[in-house]
C-alpha cells in the first residue's frame, strides 16, 4: 500500500518538475523533448495505477497516452519544427525568471486550494490532486506567456497531461471520459496544425505578434 502511493507521488512529482522546466525552456525542440518525457512518465504512472487498483481501463489509458502523446504527437511537432525551420527559434514574451516566479506562485495557489478544500477526501489522493492542478496551471501559464503558436500548443498539451494525471489518480473515473479527452486532443492538434500552415502561408512566421499588430490596426 505504501509503495503504491509513494511511487505514484514520485511520478506525479516528476511530471510537475517536467512541467516546470517546460516553462524555463526557450527553444522549441527542447520543449518538445520535455513534453515527450512528461507523456512517458504519465503513461508509466497510468500503468502503475492500473496495477495498483486492478483496473484494466487504466492500462488502456496508459497505452493511449504512450501511443498518442509520447510517440505520435512529438513526431508531428518535430515535423512542424523541421518544416518551418524553427530549430533555432528562441522566443519568450516574458523574462524566464519572471515566469518561473509566477510558476512557483501558481503551485502555491494549487496547494492552497486543494489541501484545505478536500479535507474530507481520501488523504493520500489529495497530494495527487494538488500536483495535477499545478501541472494544469503551469500549462496555462505557458500558453499565456509564449508568443509562438507552437509553444502555446505545447502548453495546451501539457495542461491536458495534468488533467489525465488527475483522472488516473481518482479511483472510479470512467474510462470513456479519458478516451474522449485523448481523442479531443488529437483532433485539436490536427486542427491547430492546419491553422499553423495557414498562418505561415499568410505571414511567413508563427510569431503571433505580427497577427496582434494587424488586429490592433484593423480595428
Amino acid at each position, binding site marked *: 500500500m505504501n509503495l503504491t502511493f509513494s511511487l505514484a507521488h514520485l511520478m506525479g512529482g516528476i511530471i510537475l518538475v517536467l512541467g516546470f522546466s517546460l516553462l524555463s525552456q526557450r527553444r522549441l525542440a527542447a520543449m518538445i523533448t520535455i513534453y515527450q518525457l512528461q507523456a512517458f512518465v504519465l503513461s508509466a504512472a497510468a500503468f502503475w495505477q492500473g496495477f495498483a487498483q486492478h483496473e484494466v481501463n487504466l492500462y488502456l489509458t496508459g497505452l493511449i497516452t504512450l501511443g498518442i502523446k509520447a510517440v505520435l504527437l512529438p513526431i508531428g511537432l518535430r515535423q512542424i519544427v523541421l518544416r518551418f525551420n524553427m530549430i533555432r527559434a528562441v522566443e519568450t*514574451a516574458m523574462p524566464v525568471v519572471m515566469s518561473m516566479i509566477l510558476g512557483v506562485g501558481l503551485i502555491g495557489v*494549487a496547494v*492552497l*486550494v486543494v489541501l484545505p*478544500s478536500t479535507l474530507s477526501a481520501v488523504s493520500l489522493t489529495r497530494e495527487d490532486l494538488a500536483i495535477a492542478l499545478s501541472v494544469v*496551471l503551469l500549462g*496555462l*501559464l505557458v500558453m499565456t506567456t509564449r*508568443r509562438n503558436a507552437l509553444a502555446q500548443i505545447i502548453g495546451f498539451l501539457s495542461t491536458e497531461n495534468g488533467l489525465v494525471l488527475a483522472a488516473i489518480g481518482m479511483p472510479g473515473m470512467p474510462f470513456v471520459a479519458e478516451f474522449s479527452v485523448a481523442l479531443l486532443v488529437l483532433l485539436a492538434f490536427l486542427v491547430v496544425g492546419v491553422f499553423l500552415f495557414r498562418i505561415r502561408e499568410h505571414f511567413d512566421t508563427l510569431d503571433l505578434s505580427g497577427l496582434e499588430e494587424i*488586429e490592433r490596426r484593423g480595428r
Partner: protein
Amino acid sequence: MTPSFALYVGLPGQGMHLHLDALSLLFLGILLPQVVAGAMAGMRKSVTFWVFALGMGLALAAADAFTLIFGFELMSAASWLLVLRGDQKPATLYVGTAIFSAACLIPAVFLPAGPLAFLLIVLGAGAKAGLAPLHFWLPRAHPAPPAGVSALMSGGMVKVALYVIIRYAFVVLAPAAQPWWGGVLVAAGAASVLIGALRAMLEGELKTVLACSTVEHVGLITVGLGIALRGKAMDDATMAGLGLQAALLYAVAHGLYKPLLFIGAGEVKHGVGTTALDWLGGLVRGMPKLGLLMLAGAAGMSAMPLGPGFAPEFLLLHAAIAAAGSGGIIARIGFTALLAVLGVGAALALGAAVRLFGIGFLGRPRTLQAAAAEEARRGPLAGMALLGALCVPVALLPGLVLNLLTPVILELAPQAQTPPLAYAPLSLAVLAGLVAGAGWLALRRYGVRGTREVAAWNGGFGKAPPWLPFGDPAAQPSATGFAEPIGRAIGRGLLAPGGADPAEAFLLAPLQRLHTRGVRLAERIRRATIRQRLAFVFAALVVFLLALGLGEGS
C-alpha cells in the same frame, strides 16, 4: 373619514392600495388646478400629459411603497417623453437624473427606518425636486417641453418629490428621526435658495428664469421642512409649527403662480416667437390681459407684500428666527447665517421678478416681432385666469388657508403649535386702497388743471437718429445689462468660472470625465489581443482559486 381603496392590479397577491389622508388631499388639491390649467393651455389631447398627471396622482394617493414608486416612475417616464418633444439634450440629462433618483428611492423605501433610508430618500426625491447640488438638470429640462407641461412639471412634479420627502421624513421614518436630519434639509434648501435666486437674476431666457426661480422656491420649502423636522425631533412645538406652516403655505402658493407664469411664457413664445428677454419689450401694449396676469404672477414670485408669496416668506423668516434662538452655539450661528441667506434670496427674487416684467413687458419693443405681438389665445388665458383667481384668497386671506392646513400639520407633527398669523393682508389692502382713493380724490380736487409742457426725460434712450423720431428701442437697458451689476457683485463669488452653475462645473463635469475614462478602459479591454484575453481569463481563474483556498483555509 379617511377613505382607502384597493386596486386589483399590481404586484401579484398584493395589489395596489390607495389611501387619502389630509396630506395626500392637500397635495392633490395643489395639483388639481394646475392639471386643469395645463389642459386648457393646449395639452388636452395629449395622452402622455394625462398619463403624467395620473402618475402624479397615483404617487400622491399611494398607501404602499410599491404604488408610490410605480406612480413616481410613471410620472418620470411620461414627463421624459414630454421633454423629448421639446429638445433632445435636456431630455437625456433629465432621464439620467430620473434614473439616479429611482436608484436611490427604490432601495430606500424598503430599508428599515434609519439615517441611511432618510439620506437615500433625500438624495432620490431631492434630485427630482431640484435641490442643490442636484438641481443642474432643472433649468435645462423644465423650459424644454410645451408650456402646459412646463407648468405642471414646475408646479406639480417638484411638489410630488417634496411630498415623498415629507411623507417619509415626517411619517414613515418618524420613529428614528434625529435633529441633524432637519439640518441636512436646511443646508440643501439654503444652497438651492442662493443658487436658484442668483441664476434667476442672471439668466437671459424667460422660461429658464422661471425654472431657476423654481429651484429657489423648492429651496425655501425645504428650509421650512428642515426647520420643522428639527423642531419635531427636538420636541420644539413653535419651530415645528412655524416651519410646517411656512413650507405648506409656500407649496400652495408656488403651485398657483409658477404654472401661471409658465403658461404665460408659452404664450409669449407663441405671440413673439422667442422667449429671450433681450428680444422682448413693451408686451403689455400688445397683450394687456396676459401682461396683467403675468404681473400678478411676478408679484407672487417676488414675495411682495399683498402677493401670494409674502405670507409664507414671512412665516419662514419667523421660523428661522425661532430656530436661531434654540440649540447649541453652532446651530445658532448656522440659523443666523440662514437668515442672511434668506434675505439675499428674497432680494434676488425681487430683482428677478422686476427684471422679468420690466424688460419683457414694459418699455419699448426691442424687435418688430415684439411690437407686432397679439393678445394670447383664449384657452391659455382662461387657465391663467383660473390660477390667478385662486391666488387671490391665498394672497389676501392666508390666515384662512392656514386654518385649512392645520389638520395636515397636526398629522405630520402632533405636538406642533399653530399660532394665528400676525399678518393681515386684507385689512392692509383695504387701508392701502383707502389711502390711494383719498390721494386720487385729493388730486382731482386740488390738483393743477390743464396741461403743462416739460422737457422729455431721456432716461434709458440714446440720442435718436434722424430716422427714428421716437428714439432707438435697442438703446434701452437690456436684460443682460440689468443683471450685470449683480453678476459682478455676487455671481463671481458663487458661480463657477465663466458663469456656469457650480453643480455643473464641480459635479457634472467630473462625472463626465470619469465616464470618458471608463469608456476608454472598456475600449482597451475590447481591443485586447487573444493572448491578453487568455491572460485575463487565466488571472480570473487564479483569483477565484485563491479566494476558494483562502476562504476554505480560514
